[in-house]
């Protein structure tokens, strides 16, 4: 049980996907113009990630090494198509908002990265825990960033008016540049907090997480990058 919790909880902070591992940036930047979109995208990712982890873990032994990546992609893509259909059927406005980024979940490095790095080596239950943890972490991050950008950029939160009258929204925040800048500043803040914590323990300040292919492994040739 504690192992299960460990795999689950690591995605919530220690290996928080977009912030700590700096993975899956496209949706993080593209769909976080409102909190609602962030939440919806996150839900889709939870669905795909958890199920793909489960399926990959189930079939991991039957798959020949050479087509491993191809098979993972097929599994992930099928789940993405399923999400696409379900989202159209039950949450059409969200589908319209997320647009092209729903099909693009398939190339989100988190999905393949977790399949390759975790699910292909671990039993189903642990893989579910990992996928769920990572997915929830991802959702939290997206919702948080979405809230931030929505509140600052539109003055609303989940569509509700939350700012005082006379608040002039920063339109910049909901546009592409705002996405980059706010994520950058957020990462810097996290580094700063980490460094304050380290300083308290008497450790030397470090640079924050760097985006590295090595932590992903999705290209199927972690030895190559």
């Amino acid at each position, binding site marked *: 049980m504690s192992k299960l919790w460990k795999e689950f909880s690591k995605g919530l902070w220690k290996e928080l996907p977009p912030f700590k591992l700096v993975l899956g940036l496209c949706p993080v930047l593209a769909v976080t113009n409102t909190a609602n979109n962030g939440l919806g995208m996150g839900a889709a990712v939870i669905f795909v990630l958890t199920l793909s982890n489960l399926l990959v873990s189930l079939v991991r032994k039957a798959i*020949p090494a050479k087509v491993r990546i191809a098979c993972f992609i097929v*599994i992930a893509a099928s789940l993405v198509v399923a999400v696409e*259909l379900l989202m159209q*059927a039950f949450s059409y*406005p969200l589908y319209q908002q997320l647009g092209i980024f729903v099909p693009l979940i398939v190339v989100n490095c988190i999905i393949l990265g977790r399949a390759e790095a975790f699910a292909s080596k671990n039993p189903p239950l642990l893989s579910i825990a990992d996928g769920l943890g990572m997915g929830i972490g991802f959702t939290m991050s997206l919702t948080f960033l979405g809230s931030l950008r929505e509140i600052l950029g539109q003055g609303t939160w989940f569509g509700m008016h939350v700012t005082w009258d006379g608040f002039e929204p920063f339109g910049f925040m909901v546009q592409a540049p705002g996405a980059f800048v706010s994520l950058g500043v957020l990462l810097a803040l996290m580094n700063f907090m980490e460094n304050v914590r380290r300083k308290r323990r008497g450790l030397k300040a470090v640079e924050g997480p760097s985006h590295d292919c090595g932590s992903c492994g999705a290209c199927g040739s972690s030895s190559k990058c």
Partner: protein
Amino acid sequence: MKEMIKMVVVLSVLCAISGSGLAALKQVTEPIIEEQVLTYVQAPAIESVLTGYDNDPIKDRKKFEYDGQVVMVFPAIKDGKLIGVALETASKGFGGQINVMVGFDVAAGALSGIGITTMKETPGIGSRVAESGFTAQFQGHPLKMVELKSKGGDIDAIAGATISSTGTVNAVQNALAIYNSLKDQFAQSWS
């Protein structure tokens, strides 16, 4: 070689399984999706082009055949009497298709309004065809001579967006043609 065959087989079978599974899912969700699309894409346009009805135009929609194509028509009924219909047509604009919902006032024999459902015109220029300044020109317009001023009609084109304007007008003309050839059937269907 054996390994290669295994590879091919595993991959193909996996594809087949997921294909079948997804198709099944698609069949289950298809009617729901159609409903959703109507609700979120067409419904707002219908509301803007039809007025004074007490039915649910989407629920009462019917399909008709025109020139070998299926046309979806949404009726506006008041007190059991058909007062108007709306139908969606498309025409090529600058950036791609422009879909236009065209409403007809049955009693007055005039256009009751148009609404753009989907389009990909240049933002700020061609996209202004969706703004009320342009669409309002069609409200109450008689069922003939729907044409841009440059071609002898009375519709003002959007400055700098001739192609988008022409596309919209073409779509309306298409709708007009459909309405004219099918209007008898409409009266029968919802009476």
